[in-house]
């Protein structure tokens, strides 16, 4: 259990996150469009058919206010990181093979996810070394109960770097909206109470350097703020 999770208030059942966080690749129209020209070429050969997921393991989890360490650049690691804002769906009830119609009944609430990555050139192999580094998944600032979110498929999420608005994205542009995504994911894997499913980032993701601060905000969900610092 990551200590960061205790810093994320959740006043609806199950009253705490499980620590399991999945992300979804290529679920925003802009992300799909950015790769459109290469999708039918090797190594991909075809656009994805089922949701493409990745795990943000427990060492990546962080809360608002936690510092994100930017690794020392080298031949393979750029000096800038990607800070990709996503809507995170928090599971409230065990979701196994749920229908699209029933999917939202399994949702406890929503939070913001800052899915941090080292920019990487392709998505053929799982990018664990680029996405699963310590502290690379700030979440929060709290879990907002589902009842307080009028329409999760029409949320505007804004990203600020050092106070400057650098990205505005809407969940209206998700290729699989929240309920559809939950149905398609739980067809092959069960999500448990407290699990988080990040629904997909827009492209291009904002870039951030050591010394900068990223704030991600959305109406009703609040503001998730994290400083990025150089390697110790």
């Amino acid at each position, binding site marked *: 259990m990551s200590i960061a999770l205790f810093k994320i208030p959740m006043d609806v059942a199950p009253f705490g996150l499980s620590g399991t966080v999945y992300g979804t690749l290529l679920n925003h129209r802009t992300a799909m469009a950015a790769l459109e020209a290469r999708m039918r070429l090797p190594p*991909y050969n075809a656009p994805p058919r089922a949701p493409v997921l990745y795990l943000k393991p427990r*060492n990546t989890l962080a809360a608002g206010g936690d510092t994100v360490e930017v690794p020392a650049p080298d031949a393979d690691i750029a000096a800038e990181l990607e800070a990709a804002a996503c809507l995170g769906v928090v599971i409230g009830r065990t979701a196994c093979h749920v229908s699209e119609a029933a999917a939202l009944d399994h949702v406890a609430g929503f939070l913001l996810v800052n899915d941090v990555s080292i920019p990487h050139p392709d998505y053929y192999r799982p990018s664990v070394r680029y996405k699963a580094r310590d502290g690379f998944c700030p979440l929060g600032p709290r879990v907002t109960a589902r009842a307080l979110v009028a329409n999760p498929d029409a949320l505007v999420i804004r990203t600020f770097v050092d106070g400057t608005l650098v990205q505005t994205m809407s969940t209206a542009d998700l290729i699989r909206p929240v309920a559809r995504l939950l149905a398609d994911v739980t067809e092959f894997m069960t999500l448990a109470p407290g699990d988080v499913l990040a629904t997909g980032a827009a492209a291009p993701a904002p870039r951030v350097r050591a010394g900068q601060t990223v704030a991600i905000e959305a109406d009703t969900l609040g503001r998730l703020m994290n400083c990025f610092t150089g390697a110790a």
Partner: protein
Amino acid sequence: MRARVAYGGALHMATPAGHAGEARLRLADGRELAEDQVIWLPPFEVGTVIALGLNYADHAKELAFNSQEEPLVFLKGPGTLLGHRGATRRPTDAAFMHYECELAVIIGRRARRVARAQALRHVAGYCIANDYAVRDYLENWYRPNMRAKNRDGATVLGPWCVDAGDVADPANLELRTFVNGRLTQRGNTRDLIFDIPYLIEYLSSFMTLAAGDVILTGTPQGVGNVMPGDEVVCEIDGLGRLVNTIAGDAAFGRRGDDKSCESNI
């Protein structure tokens, strides 16, 4: 050597009992039971599951892959875990679902930027893993993608967690898989492309490993299709035998509509 089992309404730590060849176990409270009297869980509290692809030269060749510069690492979630003697679902529409017998390395102590020479000090013990894949669902996006590898109940761990001190040489253990009693897969951990110390050094260079994290070190050649009703037994020298049964969709109340999650974009 210890297991986690459910029995009589509680979770228990258990150790082997009886003579060699007998599958009996003893609970910490002294009760002695047959192995089919308990529900076997993964033998430790599992944290992050880190899996390796193509980490035996013979298996990589079997799948027509060339040698790699860097380990092919992917992660798995908790829903995919299953204990000894469990059942794993095979979707009706799949043409090729196969087992993968692997040595699982259980981390016992926090590991951050650990050098190869110190790596094994961070290992608590070892167990057997059977890391199923449904190849029909492989796609070339974050391959092997979760739909192929992170399915419910498709990562079997157990039966025992064997203390590192009781495994003389983890780099020389034979792995064997039997399907319905017939030997179908055989390999030895001495043929790992990236060995255990290297994997701990590599992984801990970018992610802090914690007690309970587990590294599934990859599978040798000999993977084969399995069908509902098949009994799949994975063995590793000194670690025991891990039994799993393949079940069909009906046992899970499914109609075989697994393709419903696909969409043409």
